[in-house]
């Protein structure tokens, strides 16, 4: 099955890394750099949308800046701009590393990065102009979606071609997730955009897609990175190989069925919603296995969090994956969904997933990968600390305020003795806290963007390779 194994055995470990790093550095930096721009754009949109709940008349006379356009602009900028492009870079780099070879068809990766960015830019402008399709997570006009689909296919082809040319016999667990995800995502994106859905069937297709975007795209990338970086940085094998096998297949089986839990209580066949509720609860299995694997690998090594920014971000993200998954399974239970549905609780949950889990892990990955591409050490370690603590505190404040505010909102909404307006009034302090957290996160991102720019330009004080990294350049088992 795998080729050139003899070659693997003969070549020194390090030369593979150097070769694979050189081959991916251009495209990966292109992905990361554009992702970071979208991160800033998306954060500003997000904070603007949040402030509009606190000061509804602020910027009230600009159609392009009304809440109903800025909110989807935020979502699409961080989903298809920041997270997708950053994980594309991360997945590409990991694939080359784990296949122990150079990346294949790198030109396709450049094409992918360019088209992807044009697609997102076109889509965001369309939303602000008022040309949204009106479907959550699928707001971009068809032309922008076509561009993104083409870009995703280019990315997948390059990753799959590299996988085909791999020089390893053993496929590390991160690779399973990455390969599955590059096969899944373009297919999902295309079939979710087929033109023949309408009425409640379209709602089913819509929410199947929106949740499956996490299943097939964001979560696998986050897990692949966590599976790679945790053992890598602490220099110890993953806790259990068999658990990762069980985790992967139960993940693939159950997670794909979750989407319709967004429509609990809605006008769809009862059996359909029940299927998604059951699948959401079954998610306990893959989540527990992944949690045990990640967290038990860490046991006894928590001291290393102090020295490695990568480890700090990735372990924070991995813990939040466990938290957000348990939260998601509970949220899908009808008795709890009755309260949380239609409230800000769901928004808190979404940010625990896409920010506290996926984004934090992507930060960690970028901190690890960038020095190996630019041959330049991160300047100003103190700023990295600032970045971590600002965003870690910011997102915690965000999730806590949305969780409490959302539950109160749901309880008030479900109490017919209270006027509906009470359910709005009760959330106001929590919505204000959310804006404060947004400001903190924005400052964190500005610090990160400053550091990232220095890395790309190889500026700032030159630093030697940190001593803790010397002994840790060990391949995952």
């Amino acid at each position, binding site marked *: *099955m795998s080729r050139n194994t003899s070659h693997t055995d003969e070549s020194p470990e390090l030369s593979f890394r150097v070769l694979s790093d050189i081959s991916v550095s251009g495209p990966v930096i292109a992905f990361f750099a554009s992702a970071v721009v979208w991160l800033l754009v998306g954060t500003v949109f997000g904070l603007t949308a949040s402030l509009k*709940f*606190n000061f*509804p*008349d602020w910027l*009230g*006379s600009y*159609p392009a800046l009304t*809440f*109903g356009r800025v*909110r989807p602009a935020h979502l699409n900028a961080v989903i298809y701009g920041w997270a997708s492009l950053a994980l594309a870079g991360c997945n590409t780099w990991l694939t080359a590393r784990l296949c122990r070879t150079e990346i294949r068809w790198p030109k396709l990766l450049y094409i992918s990065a360019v088209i992807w960015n044009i697609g997102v830019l076109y889509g965001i402008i369309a939303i602000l102009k008022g040309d*949204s*399709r*009106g*479907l*959550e997570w699928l707001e971009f006009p068809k032309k922008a979606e076509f561009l993104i689909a083409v870009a995703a296919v280019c990315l997948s082809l390059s990753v799959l071609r590299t996988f085909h040319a791999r020089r390893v*016999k*053993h*496929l590390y667990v991160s690779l*399973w997730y990455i*390969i599955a995800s590059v*096969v*899944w995502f373009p*297919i*999902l994106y295309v079939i979710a955009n087929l033109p023949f*859905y*309408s*009425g*409640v*069937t*379209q*709602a*089913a*297709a819509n929410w*199947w897609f929106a949740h*499956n975007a996490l299943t097939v795209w964001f979560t696998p990338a986050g897990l692949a990175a966590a599976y790679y970086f945790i053992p890598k940085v602490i220099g110890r094998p993953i806790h259990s190989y068999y658990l990762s096998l069980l985790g992967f*297949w139960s993940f*693939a089986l159950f997670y*794909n*069925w979750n989407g319709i839990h967004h429509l609990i*209580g809605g*006008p*769809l*066949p*009862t059996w*359909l*919603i029940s299927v998604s509720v059951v699948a959401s609860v079954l998610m306990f299995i893959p989540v527990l296995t992944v949690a045990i694997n990640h967290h038990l690998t860490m046991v006894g090594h928590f001291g290393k969090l102090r020295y490695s920014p990568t480890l700090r971000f990735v372990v924070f993200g991995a813990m939040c994956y466990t938290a957000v998954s348990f939260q998601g399974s509970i949220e899908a239970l009808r008795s709890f969904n*009755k309260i949380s*549905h*239609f409230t*800000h609780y*769901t928004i808190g949950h979404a940010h625990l997933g896409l920010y506290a889990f996926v984004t934090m892990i992507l930060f960690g990955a970028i901190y690890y990968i960038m020095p190996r591409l630019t041959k330049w050490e991160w300047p100003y370690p103190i700023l990295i600390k600032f970045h971590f603590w600002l965003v870690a505190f910011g997102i915690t404040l965000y999730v806590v305020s949305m969780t409490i505010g959302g539950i109160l909102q749901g309880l008030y*909404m479900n109490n*017919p003795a209270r*006027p*509906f*307006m009470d359910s*709005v*009034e009760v*959330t106001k302090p929590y919505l204000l806290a959310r804006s404060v957290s947004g400001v903190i996160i924005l400052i964190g991102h500005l610090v990160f963007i400053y550091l990232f720019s220095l890395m790309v330009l190889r500026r700032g004080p030159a630093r030697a390779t940190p001593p803790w990294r010397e002994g840790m350049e060990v391949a995952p088992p």
Partner: protein
Amino acid sequence: MMFIRITTFFLGVLATLFIAWVGLVVVPGIQISEIKPSPELKPYTEQQLRGRAIYIREGCIYCHSQQTRPAGFGADQLRNWGRPSVPGDYVYDKPHLLGTSRTGPDLFNIAARQPSEDWHLIHLYNPRAVSPGSIMPPFPWLFKEEDAVSSKYIYAASGERVVPVPKGFAPEGKVIIATQGALDLVAYLLSLDHTYPIEEKNIGTAGVAPKFESKESEGGVNGGEVYTRICVSCHQTNGQGIPGAFPPLAGSDWLLKDTETPIRIVIHGLQGAIEIKGMSYNGVMPEWGSKLSDEEIAAVITHERRSWGNSAGGITPEMVGKVRKETANRTTPWTPEELQKLSGQNK
């Protein structure tokens, strides 16, 4: 070691996604495609579709759902937001606008709860003018601000729709005029009435479909509850209305002078220029006779006649029933002149 053959891996990966798509989208799609539109559901008119496009453009969906849930699932039924929605109610919806957020209330039956065009126009121009504490954004670009060089009736005569925005919410010396976009959007909102009955078997999501009516069976209608549900958005919690837009009920002769005038107004509505406490109003009060029972109308008018410093006699369901019978043939709102004439005869 290889954990599994690569072909099997790819087949497994493709199968997990594909089977889920078939199970969650294709199969229900086939099941739902056999469902006929609810019998009384009308396709959207051209104007309503234009309004629907604006609803999508401005992202109303991010705060408003369009789906009502069955009893025992939230308070949709207890708040009288309408029977649980069914797939047949959505056959003309493309794209679907079910929504997943209720930062604002559900709009599936907004036209049944709030049929006043004036209210919707003011609310879109500046939500806080009629709904204190609201965090909804304003949509001033759906309106024109013109100099109030002369009386606003000149605009009305020229066919322009003047919006009675209360003082303090529009720029000084300006008249607010609705653009076609605002009128289209309100036309769409006023098409959102799915309170028609449906066949029991069409109910997809468990539970029964209670009609759009109050909890009379629990014994005794609470007039305050009806007021909070229906009247409060225009006449406000303090009964003072919105000066210049919606008349006050506190101390209003139309409510307190005799018993039959308020009953007539609630059953058939009122259209035309009136003056209360030195303030003139020229709007439309919608009819509630087709949506409220005699008991509810009696209870809510009694509540109004005894709140905010009012202290007039109560109204019985029999009194409401009598007026309803006498005016059964009426299909249009009353004019102020008609009502004044009728109340003069009573004396």
